[in-house]
C-alpha cells in the first residue's frame, strides 16, 4: 500500500517526487493540519527513515484570514480590534504594538497612568500566554496535571481582563491615545490578590516538572539548534535567550516606559527544549515582578492623551458640551487623519519580536499595515530543529517553539 492510499495523506506530485528521490527506505508522513500537538492548523510533511526524521517541511496558511488587507478598509481606531485576533493568546501585546506604531505617527504623548497600566496588563498577558504554553506543552509530552494547574491561574488572569475591558480574550483594551475605559474600581486588590500568590504557583509547576525524570528525559538535549542557525532563520524571543543571547526589546529599545522597571532577562546556554522551559518559567517570575512594581507605583492622573481630535471625550462632557459632542461625532463617523509617513514599531511579545509596519497616506485609514509576527519567523526553523531527531521528539520540539497559528498565518 502506498502512502497516498492512507486516509489524510494526499500528497501533491512535487511531494511525491521528493519521496521518490530519497530512496525506498523513507516514507512521507503527513502530520496535521488537525493534529492536536500542532496547536492549531499546522501541517508538517515529515520524511521518515524508520523513526528518524530525514526532512521536515512545514506547510502553513490554513488560518490565513487576510487581516492585513482588512486593515486598509477600517479606520485606525477600528484596526485595534483586528490585532486581538492575530495572536489570540496575547491580545494585549498585539494591541500595544499597533497603538504604539500609530501613536508614533501621530506624535501623541501618552500619560503616565496609561503607560503603566499598559505595562501591567501586557505583563499579565505574557503570564497568560506562557501559562497556556506550559500547560499544553507539558500535556503534549505526557504530563496531564500541569495543564489543569496552569489553566487555574489563567482563569484568574482572564477574569482580571474581563474586569478591565469586559472581555476575556479579545480585549481591545489599549486604544490609540491611551486606554479604552477608565480602570475599574477595585482593580488594585484584585490584581494584588493574584500576583501575591502567583510566584508560589510557579513553584508548584516547577515541583511537578523541573526535577521530574520523565520530563527531563523528554526535553533535555532535545530540539537543539545553534544560535547562528536561529539568527539566520529569523527566530526571536525566548528561543534565542535559551541559546545564551541576551536579547529583549523591553531592554534594548524600551517602549511605554519599560525603562523604569527593574527586571532581569533570563538566559540559558543549552538551546534545548528544557532550556526554553527554564527561560519561560523564569520569565513568568520576572513578569510577576514587573506587575507588582506597576501595581504599587501606579501614577495618578489621566488615562488617555490630551488630543481631542483622536481620543473620544468623556461621556459626561459629550452630553453637556457642544464641542465635545462634535468631536465625538467626527471621530466615530470619520475617524481621524494620521499624518503621512511610515513607522516600524517593535515590541517584545511573549513569543518574540513583534513588529508593526504602518504606512499612512494622510487619510483616516491605514495605507498598509504589515505585522512581523514572531510565530512566522520562529516556525521557519522547524525543519532545521527536528531533522535527524526521532519522530516522538518532533512533538516536544515544536511545543517548545510556542507558536500560535493565528499569529503565523494572519
Amino acid at each position: 500500500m502506498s502512502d497516498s492510499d492512507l486516509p489524510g495523506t494526499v500528497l501533491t506530485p512535487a511531494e511525491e517526487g521528493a519521496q521518490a528521490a530519497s530512496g525506498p527506505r523513507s516514507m512521507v508522513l503527513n502530520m496535521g493540519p488537525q493534529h492536536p500537538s500542532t496547536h492549531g492548523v499546522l501541517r508538517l510533511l515529515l520524511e521518515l527513515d524508520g523513526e528518524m526524521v530525514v526532512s521536515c517541511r512545514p506547510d502553513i496558511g490554513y488560518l490565513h484570514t487576510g487581516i492585513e488587507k482588512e486593515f486598509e478598509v477600517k479606520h485606525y481606531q477600528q484596526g485595534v480590534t483586528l490585532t486581538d485576533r492575530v495572536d489570540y493568546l496575547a491580545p494585549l501585546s498585539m494591541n500595544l504594538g499597533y497603538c504604539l506604531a500609530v501613536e508614533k505617527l501621530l506624535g501623541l504623548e501618552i500619560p503616565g497612568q496609561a503607560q503603566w497600566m499598559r505595562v501591567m496588563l501586557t505583563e499579565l498577558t505574557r503570564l497568560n500566554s506562557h501559562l497556556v504554553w506550559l500547560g499544553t506543552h507539558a500535556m503534549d509530552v505526557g504530563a496531564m496535571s500541569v495543564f489543569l494547574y496552569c489553566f487555574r491561574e489563567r482563569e484568574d488572569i482572564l477574569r482580571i481582563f474581563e474586569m478591565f475591558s469586559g472581555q476575556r480574550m479579545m480585549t481591545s483594551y489599549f486604544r490609540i491615545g491611551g486606554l479604552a475605559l477608565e480602570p475599574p474600581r477595585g482593580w488594585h486588590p484584585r490584581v494584588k490578590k493574584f500576583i501575591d500568590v502567583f510566584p508560589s504557583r510557579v513553584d508548584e509547576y516547577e515541583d511537578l516538572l523541573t526535577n521530574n525524570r520523565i520530563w527531563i528525559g523528554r526535553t533535555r538535549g532535545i530540539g537543539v539548534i545553534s544560535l547562528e542557525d536561529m539568527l539566520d532563520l529569523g527566530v526571536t524571543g525566548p528561543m534565542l535567550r535559551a541559546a545564551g543571547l541576551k536579547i529583549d526589546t523591553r531592554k534594548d529599545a524600551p517602549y511605554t516606559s519599560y525603562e523604569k522597571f527593574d527586571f532581569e532577562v533570563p538566559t540559558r546556554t543549552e538551546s534545548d527544549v528544557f532550556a526554553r522551559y527554564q527561560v519561560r518559567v523564569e520569565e513568568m517570575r520576572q513578569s510577576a515582578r514587573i506587575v507588582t512594581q506597576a501595581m504599587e507605583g501606579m501614577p495618578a492622573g489621566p488615562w488617555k492623551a490630551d488630543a481631542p481630535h483622536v481620543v473620544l471625550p468623556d461621556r459626561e462632557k459629550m452630553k453637556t458640551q457642544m464641542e465635545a459632542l462634535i468631536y465625538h461625532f467626527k471621530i466615530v463617523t470619520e475617524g481621524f487623519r494620521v499624518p503621512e509617513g511610515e513607522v516600524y514599531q517593535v515590541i517584545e511579545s511573549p513569543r518574540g519580536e513583534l513588529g508593526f509596519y504602518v504606512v499612512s497616506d494622510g487619510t483616516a485609514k491605514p495605507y498598509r499595515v504589515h505585522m512581523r509576527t514572531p510565530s512566522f519567523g520562529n516556525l521557519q526553523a522547524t525543519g532545521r530543529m527536528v531533522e535527524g531527531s526521532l519522530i516522538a521528539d518532533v512533538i516536544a520540539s515544536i511545543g517548545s517553539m510556542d507558536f500560535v497559528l493565528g499569529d503565523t498565518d494572519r
Partner: protein
Amino acid sequence: MLPDNLRDRAVAAAVAAFDADAVTGGNDAHDELTLEIAPAKIASICGFLKYDQGFVRLSTVTAVDRYPAEPRFEVVYHLHSIQRNERVRLKCRVRGEDPVIESVTSVWRSANWYEREVFDLFGIRFTNHPDLRRIMLPDDWEGHPLRKDYPVTGSRV
C-alpha cells in the same frame, strides 16, 4: 544619491561609501533610517550590511502597493543589528508590469518565507529564490490579494 542630512548616520555613510550608485534616496523620519536602494543592487547591499556592518538579522520583508503610481511596488526590508542595537529599513521600487527583484535568501535564509509571502500576496517574483511557491493561499488561487486593485469583498463568479 544619499541625502546630505543622512551623511552623519554611520550606516548610511557606509552604504554610500560601499556603492554610491546603489543609494537613490532616504530619510530618517521618526528617527528610523530608511535607505532607498536601486533594485538591481539589493542583494549586494544586503550582503554588505550583513557581513560588514553587523546586520545579522533580517526582521521582515514586505511590500507596499503604490497603485497607480509607477514604479508601482515598494519592496521593504527591515534589518536589525544586535551588536549595534540599530535597525535600518531598505526600500526598492519595482515596476508594476511583471514585477521582479533579486532574492536575498542567499544572505539570510529567513528571507525564504518572507519573500514567498510577498510573492503570494503581491505577485512580485524573486529571482534565485530556492522555493518560490504560494505560502498562505492555495496553489490554484487567482490574483494577489494585497494589491490595491484586488477587491476586499465580493465573490468569484
